[in-house]
């Protein structure tokens, strides 16, 4: 095992971590601001992946599929929020679990009706299909680097928006004290809808750009959802910084775990989470007793 092995694993881990960050950031914001536990968050990731697959085939390019799919997924999120989630903001967490479990069944079955049970692959756009040679025998695909760069841009944009726009200020305030935000005259009705759509849009976007590196298969949404839960638990609910650190930790742990100890690949990230919880039950950046 030479240095290029470690470089490749590190790049894979970072790229996976970035995708996780996009999914987990939506999850943690929806938790933090709206107090909603959204199990169906992974469904938006799945929606993105399948829309990318389908639209890329019809339009011929992943890039032209991106805006259409993003618009569609956000519209679905908006409808779900207006028609269903809105009724449950004042209810128990249990009801959120029940509602979103129902949504998972609906989305999964729709996926099965539309695309069946097969595993599909999406080709990377021609422009990014090449590889960068690392050594005489090993190379690294350009598309994976592209994912990392795009996600870095999105993460940066998100951080700036949350730090210095009025919308971002309302989000940060909402995480700290929801009632106070309402009392200050911010229309939480609109704020919640916007946060929910933002979260779903981020997840769908992650699903779209992930489609060429992950196979597109039924259940891909839940796979990412559950790992994103681990990320949020590690980072602390409502913390974007936590989500970022958690996502990178899990991404790297997963990449090196799979390469170095393949027999424990499945349970590795959960062991990382358990160890962290022993030390800090509220996550790295979480407030005590969220």
């Amino acid at each position, binding site marked *: 095992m030479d240095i290029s092995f470690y470089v490749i694993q590190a790049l894979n881990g970072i790229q996976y971590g970035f995708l996780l960050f996009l999914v987990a950031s939506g999850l943690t914001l929806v938790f933090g601001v709206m107090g909603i536990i959204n199990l169906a968050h992974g469904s938006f990731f799945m929606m993105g992946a399948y829309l990318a697959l389908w639209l890329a085939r019809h339009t011929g390019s992943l890039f032209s599929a991106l805006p259409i799919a993003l618009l569609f997924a956000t519209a679905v999120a908006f409808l779900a929020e207006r028609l269903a989630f809105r009724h449950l903001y004042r209810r128990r967490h249990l009801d959120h*679990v029940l509602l979103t*479990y129902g949504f998972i069944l609906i989305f*999964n079955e729709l996926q099965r009706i539309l695309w069946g049970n097969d595993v599909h692959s999406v080709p990377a756009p021609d422009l990014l299909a090449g590889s960068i040679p690392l050594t005489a025998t090993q190379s690294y695909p350009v598309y994976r680097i592209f994912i990392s760069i795009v996600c870095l841009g999105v993460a940066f944009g998100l951080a700036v928006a949350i730090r210095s726009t009025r919308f971002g200020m309302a989000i940060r305030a909402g995480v700290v004290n929801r009632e106070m935000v309402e009392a200050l005259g911010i229309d939480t009705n609109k704020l919640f809808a916007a946060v929910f759509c933002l979260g779903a849009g981020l997840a769908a976007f992650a699903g779209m750009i992930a489609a060429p590196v992950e196979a597109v298969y039924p259940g891909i949404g839940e796979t990412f959802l*559950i790992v994103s*839960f681990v990320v949020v638990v590690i980072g602390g609910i409502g913390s974007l910084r936590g989500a970022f650190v958690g996502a990178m930790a899990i991404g790297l742990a997963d990449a090196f775990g799979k390469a170095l100890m393949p027999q424990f690949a499945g349970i590795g990230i*959960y062991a990382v989470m*358990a160890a962290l919880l022993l030390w800090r039950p509220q996550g790295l950046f979480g407030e005590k007793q969220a």
Partner: protein
Amino acid sequence: MKPRLDGRRAALAAALLALALVPAVADEFYVVLFTKILVLGIFAMSLDLLVGYTGLPSLGHAAYFGAAAYAAMVLAPESAPANLLLTLPASVLVAALLALATGALAVRTAGMYFIMVTLAFGQMAYFAVHDSPYLGGSDGKLLFARPVVAFGGAAILDFAEPQVYYLLVLACLAGSYGILRAVVQSPFGRVIQGIRVNEARMQALGYATYRYKLASFAIGGAFAGLAGYLAAYQAEYVNPKLLGWQESGLALVMVILGGVGTLHGAVLGSAAIVLLQEFFSELTSHWMLLLGLFIVGSVIWLPHGIVGIRAWARRARTR
């Protein structure tokens, strides 16, 4: 207070009697269907102890259900029926110990963290089984035969007949209900219900709430294990899906749909889900879509579950 309690006892006795008569009057198809309802009813009741009484909304409860199912498979002889008197307690013990170990970490957290942590532990158990060739990997493994009750080498009771197996499951359900009811009415039960309402106050009263929550988590795990053992032998087959998060989620749906914190509501929820699955799958192969729509509709319009329908109807009349 007293007459109401007696009325409830009478209703319970009548329900048990009616259930005991199912094998005498119904086709084998319905006996098997009812066995499934009762097995999942035990599973949902065990979750209700955590969700409805202790305030621990676990989304990884299937880990203990599946752990006992796999324990039953590992403990069963290769080509002879297992002895129920040995393998059932041992399988339940495995589930309880696993719940004790994972619960020791999980009950340190609360609220949404708890939901996510239990989900993660459930997935950990799932992958541990899924990735183990010894346990059959993703395909699972078949069990040779239903267990028997044996004394000193001689089998005195055999559960190969579905009707007999149904009665075993019914007896387990009745026993579980009795024990869990006694648990929630005991001083211990008062403490865990106090924790659900206000943990800080219970701590101020001097209770070591962590220990109570952990004990409740382990008891819930043990009864989930009982259900898992029975489920494994009903299908005579185990696979990793038994530990999967869908199974945990479905149990939670049963509990919430039935009515949280009632025990018998969990059994009603189990009946509702199993019968709906059966009914919808007769209609279309895309029954999950209908079930999903049903769940979404019921959570919006039926906030207190099936046992809340009476109060809901009363309100609707007076309106």
